[in-house]
Every structure is written in structure tokens, then in C-alpha cells.
């Protein structure tokens, strides 16, 4: 269903419907993530992707206009590039371990330490919160700084300069 949604989003030219479809896509992705046992990530994806992203896209759409123009040239080259990339990536997935293999190195390298010692050392049963805030606290610091920078960037881009308003008042 998500593949069908993606193709619909590619073909649609009315941007408002593309934004609504992207909200549906986020909710479907959150459902898939719950099926894969990633409950923290699903909650974040649902609230961020379907909530904040949709609001920001609608705000930008109001300011920018809501129709996409018809492409001038038939997109043969990008389509060929897409097919080549699909072939290369599918060839690459044959080297990956099978789905849900407990002996894959993914599961045996450092994760047993987090699962066994995490609740004992930090007193927090939710291993994701423990790893995020304590074991990998530097990464979370970087992430908070990235969010802060994005806020400052939007303020700097969309601020109205005071000089222009002062000049208009004088004239």
C-alpha cells in the first residue's frame, strides 16, 4: 500500500493532495514501525511526520501556490536512472542476512550489553530512553543543537527586517 501511495504522490500535480497523501504515508509508516516492534520510533514518526510536517507543508503551500507545472521534457533519463538504481539495490540486498536472524552480527555485537546492563546501571526499564539519554548522550546533545539551529535558521530566513519598515514610515 505504501508503494501505491508513493506512485500516486509522484503522479499527482495538485500539491494539496500530495500533502494530504504524505500525511497518510506517515501514518502508514508509523503502523509498519509498530509491527516491527519500534514503538518509540512509531510515536515520533506519527507525531512528527503526520503532525508537524503536514502543518509546515500546508503553511508553505499557502505562501507558494498549490499547483505543480507540467514538465517540459519527458523524463526519460531520470526514469532510466531510477531503474538502474533499483537493479543495483536489489542486487545489494541479496548480500544482507535473512529477515529476523538472531545470529546476525547486528544482534550480537554491542546490543546484549545494553539489554542486560541497561536497566541495572541506569534504573530505567525503557532501553531506548536509557541508550538515548545516557549511553549515547552526546548524540542527543548534537540533535538538540540541530533542532535549535533549524529554529534559528527559520527565524533568520523569514524575519522581516526592521530597517525597511522604518524607511516606509518615514516616507
Amino acid at each position: 500500500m505504501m508503494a501505491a501511495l508513493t506512485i500516486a504522490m509522484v503522479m499527482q500535480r495538485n500539491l494539496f493532495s500530495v500533502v494530504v497523501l504524505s500525511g497518510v504515508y506517515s501514518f502508514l509508516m508509523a503502523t509498519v514501525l509498530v509491527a516491527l516492534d519500534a514503538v518509540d520510533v512509531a510515536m515520533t514518526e506519527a507525531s512528527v511526520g503526520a503532525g508537524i510536517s503536514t502543518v509546515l507543508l500546508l503553511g508553505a503551500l499557502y505562501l507558494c501556490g498549490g499547483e505543480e507545472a507540467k514538465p517540459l521534457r519527458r523524463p526519460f533519463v531520470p526514469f532510466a536512472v531510477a531503474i538502474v538504481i533499483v537493479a543495483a539495490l536489489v542486487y545489494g540486498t541479496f548480500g544482507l542476512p535473512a529477515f529476523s536472524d538472531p545470529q546476525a552480527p547486528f544482534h550480537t555485537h554491542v546490543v546484549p550489553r545494553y539489554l542486560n546492563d541497561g536497566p541495572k546501571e541506569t534504573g530505567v526499564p525503557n532501553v531506548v530512553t536509557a541508550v538515548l539519554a545516557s549511553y549515547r548522550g552526546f548524540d542527543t546533545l548534537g540533535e538538540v543543537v540541530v533542532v535549535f539551529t533549524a529554529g534559528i535558521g527559520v527565524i533568520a530566513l523569514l524575519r522581516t527586517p526592521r530597517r525597511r519598515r522604518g524607511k516606509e514610515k518615514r516616507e
Partner: protein
Amino acid sequence: MTFAGHYTYWMTVVLMVGGLYIVIARGNLVKKLIGLAIFQTSVYLLYIAPGKLIGGTAPIVSEAFKVYSNPLPHVLILTAIVVGVATLALGLAIAVRIREAYGSIEEDEILAVNGSDEDRA
């Protein structure tokens, strides 16, 4: 190399290339940003899908469960989602400013206006 073993990866590849196609083949700036968001969510799927253990549960330690799914990609992807929305917000702010400066957010029209400016200068 069974079909069921790799179906998730192939769906991820389809979503990834769908998003990439929107970015490279469409000229509208806002639609390109949406394509970028689709590409990013497919990468989230690529990271989290191998972490799932069939018969396991969410990685919240409790007495009733013995097998847990891998929590490490959850942590990384949580950060990635928030960084993704920050990127989207900044990209949309730039698109709004481009619209005010050039009058349109279609790539062809912007390049035409830019080219005529360069011819005059």
C-alpha cells in the same frame, strides 16, 4: 535467500527509488522536498527492519518477556526523524523566500529568470 526473507528490503528499495525519482525528475521545489521526506522514511525502514526478531517484543525490559528486538537502530532513527523535520522546515523557509524573490517555485522558471538576469548583467 528466500522471498519472505527479503521482501522488506525490496519494499524499502521501491520507496527509496520513488522518493529519489521525485527529487530528480520533478521541478517544483515543494514537491522535491516531499520526495526527500519519502526517501528519508525509506531509510528509517531500512535500519529498523533488520532489528526485528520474530517472537520478540518492544525493547522495554520487564519480567514477562525474554526476547527483545534490537533497540540500537531505534535510537539512531529517533534522532534521524527529528533531524529530518528540521531539514524540511529549513527547506520550506528557503522555498518561500525563493518564491518571493523570483515569483515562482518551478525550477525551469527560476532558471529562466536567473539566466535573463545574467545576460543583462
